[in-house]
């Protein structure tokens, strides 16, 4: 069942996420709720999905027990702000951010981690 009202692909299980990041070279996953700090990040991802063909964009509901795969990832240690956003390269966590990010912040990370 989908929990997040976005146009992005939503992972419903940890296994699905693991498969996906292993099958796709560059993946950005935003793990959040339908709240004020998360929705702007989903909006940025929806915009970028059209123009960045080298990156797969997806979301995961923060409150799902399955999202423990992100909540408990060592890259998210010390995070105290929603959403938790992961950038995976070849199945490995390459970068993670906590709290709201704007278009410029996201594109800078995408350029650095996955190339322009």
């Amino acid at each position, binding site marked *: 069942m989908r929990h997040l*009202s976005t146009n992005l692909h939503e992972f419903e299980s940890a296994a699905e996420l693991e498969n996906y990041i292993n099958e796709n070279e560059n993946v950005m996953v935003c793990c959040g709720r339908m709240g004020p*700090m*998360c929705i702007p990040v989903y909006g940025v991802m929806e915009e970028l999905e059209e123009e960045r063909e080298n990156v797969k964009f997806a979301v995961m509901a923060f409150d799902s027990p399955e999202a423990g795969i992100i909540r408990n990832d060592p890259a998210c240690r010390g995070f105290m702000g929603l959403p938790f956003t992961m950038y995976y390269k070849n199945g490995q966590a390459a970068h993670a951010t906590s*709290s709201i990010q704007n278009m410029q912040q996201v594109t800078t990370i995408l350029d650095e981690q996955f190339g322009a």
Partner: protein
Amino acid sequence: MPQEEIFDVIIVGAGAAGLTAGIYSSRAKLSTLILNEGAIGGQMVLTEEIANYPGVDTKKGYMLANTMKMQAKQFGCKIKSGLQIKSYDLEGEVKHFVLDDGREFSSRAVILTPGGRPRSLGIPGEESFKGKGISYCATCDGEFFTGKEVVVVGGGNSALEEAVALTSYATRVTIVHQFDHFQAFKHAVEQAEKNPKISFIMESELRSFKGDGVLQEVTMEHLPKGKITTMRTDGVFIFAGYIPNTEDLDGIVELNERKEIVTDTDLKTNLPGVFAAGDCIVKKYRQVTTAVADGTIASLSAAEYLRS
């Protein structure tokens, strides 16, 4: 980049004011484009629930924003979001916009609705501890501070209401405010004052954030004496008011000393064919209803300008 079509109206910003202007302009069969920088819906998506929009039951802010977006699109309004406008040329009969990616757009009338954004403190450590102890939303992040001690910065309604909300999680909430009195409504101040978990540090401002990976302490200045002290804390929630998003318009349209756009009652700016609406203009009350009303007026004024 090839020059695209000349629109009747270009609206800058897709908050309540911009989306409303988009609905009215496109419904009046004017070719309409909204250029938006952040999330579509603007501050509405920053609002957990909107309970005072007449005719609509209490609704999540993002849902109200989505409905407005769909309405605008249904009438043929085009919306381009997640972009940055690099330059504005608003003086001639045809107004011209260049985006940072080189795309160019033109129109015969313009409605400026860039709204406002939360004021950040702009002090050392703020950006690096965002999400690692610094937050701008108690509803979103309060639970991360369960059993911890937090500071709330600000003295308006948001600061006091969010401080009370945070007492459901935190063991202690300290409100730090720059003045010796609060700007919040009386009932919000009373709620905070009678809460045993809340204490107050008045006439003080934060000066820096420090920590090792996560926020651990803040330094603050007691303004009357200039005395700097350090305080240990697990988190800081910042509600220091809003500022208009008009930096890029300074020197292009007339702004007042608070950098709000100056308009007349038809929401005309000092430039012919350029109108403004919503939180960015000089006015006293900033609400979704007032932004929607402004968007309507600006759109009707723009239509009249185009007819003449």
